[in-house]
């Protein structure tokens, strides 16, 4: 008996071929091209491009930015999702909408908002100038823009997970005498740990790869305010393709690691959620 949804082999083959060709053109070929260009002049040249002081400064700045932005958004995401999933309070809908704001706004606009706020002609410009604090065209501006752009990731990931879990386990812990922090660390956090990790991975990938918002506030000062994506752009504009692709290969590599980590987390959390076969009732 033929299943109703089984297509003839020819149609199946054609569909598969279309999908594969599409994948090859739009995903695999660019990835291969990045690494091919990066290694065009050999592995020695590749390493030299990465060791170049400006490139190295860009790598360090990117790591620093991520190291500040990701923990901040992890803390914010946990707090926001906890509040939204477990409590009823006025303004909950507004908070949910605000969390999505960075997704809705173009990154360039996000960058410009910070220039308008902290720039020399900006709202807080005179105050900052008087106290000799530099935000725009400096590292703090880059961190701020990155935090803004990446803050929905952890919260958005956790809110549905926490809502699905409900309140019962927390209530049980409270009746058993556990305090707020004990409930959070012993009950809530272990239940959402895979969601947290997933959110952190995505947040980190975006924090390291962000271009638009950072570009506006950075000022492109070589060796000082260039992150990896900005440095790639500079090298590219100078027709230094090999070096540009060598640095870009780091981001491509980060993307691959992110995908791998993401699938590991998905696999692990899927396993944790799957109920095992129940043991037979003892007589």
């Amino acid at each position, binding site marked *: 008996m033929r299943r109703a949804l089984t297509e003839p082999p020819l149609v199946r083959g054609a569909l598969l071929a279309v999908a594969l060709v599409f994948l090859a053109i739009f995903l695999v070929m660019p990835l291969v091209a990045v690494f091919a260009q990066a290694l065009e002049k050999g592995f020695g040249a590749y390493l030299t491009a990465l060791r170049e002081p400006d490139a190295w400064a860009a790598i360090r700045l990117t790591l620093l930015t991520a190291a500040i932005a990701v923990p901040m958004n992890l803390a914010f995401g946990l707090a926001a999702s906890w509040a939204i999933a477990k409590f009823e309070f006025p303004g909950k809908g507004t908070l949910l909408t605000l969390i999505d704001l960075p997704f809705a706004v173009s990154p360039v606009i996000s960058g410009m908002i910070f220039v308008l706020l902290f720039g020399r002609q900006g709202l807080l410009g005179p105050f900052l100038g008087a106290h000799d604090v530099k935000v725009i065209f400096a590292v703090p501006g880059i961190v701020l823009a990155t935090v803004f752009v990446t803050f929905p990731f952890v919260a958005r990931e956790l809110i549905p997970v926490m809502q699905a879990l409900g309140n*019962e*386990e927390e*209530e*049980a*812990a*409270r*009746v*058993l*005498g*556990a*305090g707020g922090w*004990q409930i959070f660390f*012993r*009950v809530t956090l*272990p*239940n959402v740990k895979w969601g947290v990790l997933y959110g952190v991975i995505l947040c980190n990938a975006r924090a390291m790869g962000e271009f638009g918002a950072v570009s506006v506030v950075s000022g492109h000062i070589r060796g000082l305010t260039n992150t990896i994506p900005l440095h790639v752009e500079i090298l590219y504009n100078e027709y230094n393709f090999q070096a540009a692709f060598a640095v870009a290969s780091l981001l491509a590599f980060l993307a691959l690691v992110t995908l791998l980590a993401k699938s590991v987390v998905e696999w692990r959390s899927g396993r*944790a959620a799957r*109920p*095992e*076969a*129940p*043991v*037979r*009732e*003892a007589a």
Partner: protein
Amino acid sequence: MSIEVRNVTKKFGTFTAVDDVSVTVPAGELVALLGPSGSGKTSLLRIIAGLETPDAGIVFFEGEDQAQRDVRVRRVGFVFQHYALFRHMTVFENVAFGLRVRPRASRPSVADIRAKVMDLLKLVQLDWLADRRPSELSGGQRQRVALARALAVEPKVLLLDEPFGSLDARIRQELRRWLRRLHDDIRLTSVFVTHDQEEALDVADRVVVMNRGRIEQIGTPQEVFEHPATPFVMTFIGQSAVFAGTVQGGKAFLGSLAAVDFPAHLHEEARPAAGYARPHELEVTRIENGGGGLWATLRHASPAGAVVKLELTDPEGGSLQVEVTREQHEALQAGVGESLYVKPRKLRIFVQEDATSDAPDTPRAPRA
């Protein structure tokens, strides 16, 4: 430890879940809160636990006002309807949780915790599953883990929300006998919520029947079954035949029944009322046995153990359920379609108080 609830009211928005309820649970008793869903029984249980704050009224434990005492320090054992076991912990860790989260000064040593937890797991006959996770257990086993976990903190009262609600019938019966025996052993003041009247009557020392946020009756299982205080209790607990009608001038005129004396209402003004009888309180004969009854047509007879259940239709088309003994049924020699005389041996008549009274407008289908 005794529990007293005094004039407690709880509203959720415009819905009054608990409406000025007062009830006392003496120390060491096992009390059932019985009612249909939405009757406020779970809200009342959660208020006693401290998981909800009442809008008005006071909860006392052993005469002590609990309003200022957080759920954490009330020392209640609470068994949740869906168990709420910590899914990422083993059975052992679940039971140990309440001991491990104590402040260092009062926390037992690791060895003491281990001994205590294993004792409790033995008590609920699950020591052999200590290293399993909740997802690997059956419903009945999870229920017992939840109970052991609640008992680990040495609670002064035990509160159970629909403790057998999500189990299948056989396990449910076993577990409720087991709970009764356990209660007889440890004598912990316990309150459990149920919508199953059979369960409440079977297990509890006393039953609190609730409807629409109010208490309809408090009494022993026998009292609420034999002497229901309201029409709601009459129809909610056990089956009953209803004869609707009026009372007027010391007489009750109910359905097709002949008028009966009703000295409780001597007023000349007629009031709507209804008479209720249990299926076994109806007498069935082939002749008009002294009057006071009605003629009905036999539709169906089904033997059910020691009794035979008869289904009859009265002249107005209403259905009547009657239970007679096997001997009576044989003596009756009645076939389907024959006319039989049905007469209540006992009739409980409730006069409708006023238009807004809690008449049993939503009687639950009585359990067979």
